[in-house]
């Protein structure tokens, strides 16, 4: 049985179509990514999943339960880490967890035990009595994540969990998420960090303008749509362009930079660097970012 089943989901705000017929499913135990540029409809989709935003059309089922009929039961089993900090500044770190457990009707002794477990898991024990206002961005995000787990959810929903964090905090959070996934937790993640998605997601969709552009496993999608590797040439001159014109390859011309998508082998790269020029030529593995930009375009969004 799928944990999440979304079918033909739609949401309009006046003339703007935020979500335009989205269909996907999240299987038990996997980490599923919802990728897209800013304003693609990721957060709106997430908000419809837990009933925050009413949908205009489509069906939503979580844990096999219909969202219109069993919203409370569904919300009991979801852990949600929102994009914006919504920690309670009037409470201490530990009380943020214990107090949140109360909304799930978890008895106090269990809530306290769970809070201590989570503080330890996220290395926050030392800060248990601190007020929220003295925490750094990274600590706050760890606490947000800990709070999302207070009810032992069957599904963890993360809306851009590492936006605005420093590399250390991001790495730590990724490790913790990987560990949670290892314990069998189902995760639904939105992000626009491709490295994050590549590292965590078993399957993903890329959305733009409220529509799903592509769905699949990250590596398979990259291989299929981009290739094995990418040859980057900065400041290409006439000679380089003439050389590439004579070769069988896909070239993307960005003006002061050329991207050449290669299926496998490094013959073209070797030929180019030995016969034409080596300077400014780099061969690297194709990444999710290549795929993302290929699908959603390079122009700025906001």
């Amino acid at each position: 049985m799928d944990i999440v089943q979304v079918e033909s989901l739609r949401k309009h705000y006046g003339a703007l179509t935020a979500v335009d017929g989205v269909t996907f499913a999240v299987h038990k135990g996997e980490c599923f990514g919802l990728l897209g540029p800013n304003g693609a409809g990721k957060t709106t989709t997430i908000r419809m999943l837990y009933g925050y935003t009413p949908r205009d059309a489509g069906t939503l089922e979580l844990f096999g339960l219909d969202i219109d009929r069993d919203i409370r039961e569904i919300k009991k089993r979801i852990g949600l880490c929102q994009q914006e900090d919504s920690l309670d500044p009037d409470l201490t770190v530990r009380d943020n967890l214990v107090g949140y457990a109360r909304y799930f009707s978890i008895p106090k002794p269990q809530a306290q035990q769970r809070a201590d477990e989570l503080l330890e898991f996220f290395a926050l024990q030392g800060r248990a009595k601190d007020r929220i206002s003295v925490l750094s961005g990274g600590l706050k995000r760890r606490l947000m994540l800990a709070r999302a787990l207070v009810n032992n959810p069957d599904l963890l929903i993360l809306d851009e969990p590492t936006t605005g964090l420093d590399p250390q905090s991001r790495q730590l959070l990724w490790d913790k998420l990987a560990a949670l996934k290892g314990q069998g937790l189902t995760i639904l993640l939105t992000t626009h960090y491709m490295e994050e998605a590549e590292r965590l997601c078993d399957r993903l969709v890329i959305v733009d303008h409220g529509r799903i552009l592509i769905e699949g496993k990250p590596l398979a999608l990259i291989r299929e749509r981009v290739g094995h590797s990418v040859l980057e040439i900065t400041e290409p001159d006439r000679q380089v362009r003439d050389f590439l014109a004579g070769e069988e390859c896909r070239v993307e011309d960005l003006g002061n930079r050329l991207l050449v998508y290669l299926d496998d082998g490094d013959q073209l790269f070797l030929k180019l660097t030995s016969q034409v020029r080596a300077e400014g030529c780099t061969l690297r593995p194709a990444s999710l970012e290549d795929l993302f930009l290929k699908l959603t375009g390079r122009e700025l969004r906001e």
Partner: protein
Amino acid sequence: MNWPKPSQISHRTLRVWQRNFSVYRRTWKISFLPPLIEPLLYILAFGVGLAVLVGEFHYAGRQLSYTVFIAPALVSVAIMYNAFFECTYNSFVRMYYQKTFDALLATPLNLEEIILGEMLWAATKSVIATTLMGTVISLCGLFEFPGALLLIPLALLGGLLFAALGMICTALVPGIETFNLPIFLGITPMFLFSGTFFPLQNLPGWAQSVAQLLPLTHLVALVRGCALQFWSASLWLSLLYLLTATAILLPLAIALMVRRIVK
């Protein structure tokens, strides 16, 4: 606009109340001071300073000192202030700046319960203030018993009414600074012209009629009637006014907040 249905409200409403109560309890020593000290300051200022000028006067068939006259009004104003300010500034901060409602919406609670819980808490603050102030004023010998005991249920009712009015403002204001407007246009005139510091009869006829529309007028009438044991049939009309207004404004406040937050 979607009006709340009774089926949407569960025991979880109390969790919101509990959250605010536990925060309040952390600072209760400071929170308790204003309702204890404020009446003493007023009684000192009016009882010692102003009462000398006013002297004793005739009210509802009895000779009254000015201090006795205004003591119930102080409690009524406290009921209004505690509930109204809790559901305006404090609720707005929780909704808009602290994102507390957003966090709660990810739990089994629904928005209707969150808003109702906020208003119940605001009314509770009115009850706490009334109990503390009432005790101080009673110790000064200004209230009569057992009538004054009715102030506690009155504080709950009045608290809910002014909480609903505050929440309606919260649902409608574009930003936190806009609260000045309902305070300047509604709360301050009510504070002055609801039979608080002088009998309504001293107003010109048309102004008396306007004052009869104000919720604080009826709360003051009831609180004064109970605390000083001035029983009259018109108190039933005031009670009916408060009950009707609360029964309409409470669900209206929830519906307007849902309209504001759910998009």
